[in-house]
């Protein structure tokens, strides 16, 4: 299980290869890549700055991975989240889950991402044509995280 907060970009295939290396039990790898869009709330985004809470951010994500492991048979998991200056089309976040079967890998990957959105201390500031603004939290993200409470622990 690995959590990395970094300014540098990442290579998805290199990360996936490293995650499942030497583990013949892995039958499924699910991954999610979040990407910076050029439009948000009707404004054109020229650039984005990601701020985080060093120390707590890593702990919060480790805790989320721990919750995923208690629900599904996760063989290995990786979360990389970038901070600092980002531009549209840049990769911003990577979640990779290796499991024995696809159902568990998909579910755990989506769970980690939904919880990260509402529980990991990151904040986005966008620079648009009208100046800089802090991105507001979305209620739809709360709903996405909340629905896991009512789902069964295993979905194979």
């Amino acid at each position, binding site marked *: 299980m690995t959590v990395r907060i970094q300014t540098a970009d990442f290579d998805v295939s290199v990360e996936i290869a490293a995650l499942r290396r030497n583990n013949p039990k892995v039958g499924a790898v699910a991954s999610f890549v979040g990407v910076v869009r050029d439009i948000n709330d009707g404004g054109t985004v020229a650039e984005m700055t990601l701020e985080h809470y060093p120390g707590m951010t890593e702990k919060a994500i480790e805790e989320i991975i721990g919750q995923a492991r208690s629900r599904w048979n996760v063989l290995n998991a990786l979360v990389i989240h970038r901070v600092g200056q980002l531009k549209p089309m840049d990769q911003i976040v990577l979640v990779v889950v290796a499991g024995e079967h696809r159902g568990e890998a998909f579910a755990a990957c989506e769970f980690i991402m939904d919880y990260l959105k*509402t529980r990991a201390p*990151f904040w986005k500031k966008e620079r648009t044509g009208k100046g800089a603004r802090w991105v507001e939290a979305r209620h739809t993200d709360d709903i996405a995280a909340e629905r896991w409470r009512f789902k069964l622990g295993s979905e194979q």
Partner: protein
Amino acid sequence: MDRPRGRPANSGRMITVLYFASLRESLGKGAEQIALPAAVRDLEGLRALLVARGGAWEEGLAPGRPVRAAVNQAMAHGDTRIADGDEIAFFPPVTGG
């Protein structure tokens, strides 16, 4: 215990308080050390102490404002107790991912 006139009793507890993102900008401060008055026992009490500074503090931290908080890097609520040496953080709802 002798103490200066007109100042609240200091409990001897020192804490570190951090502010992030829009809150850090509006308050003009990212971190500070605070000597806790004896009356401040929990997160809610600390927030009230900060609100009492007025101005941007009152505006940014007023009850009802969407402010989240952590004690020692774990999400916390108003009734979470505060102890000597704690690291407290106030920040807006998170927007990563």
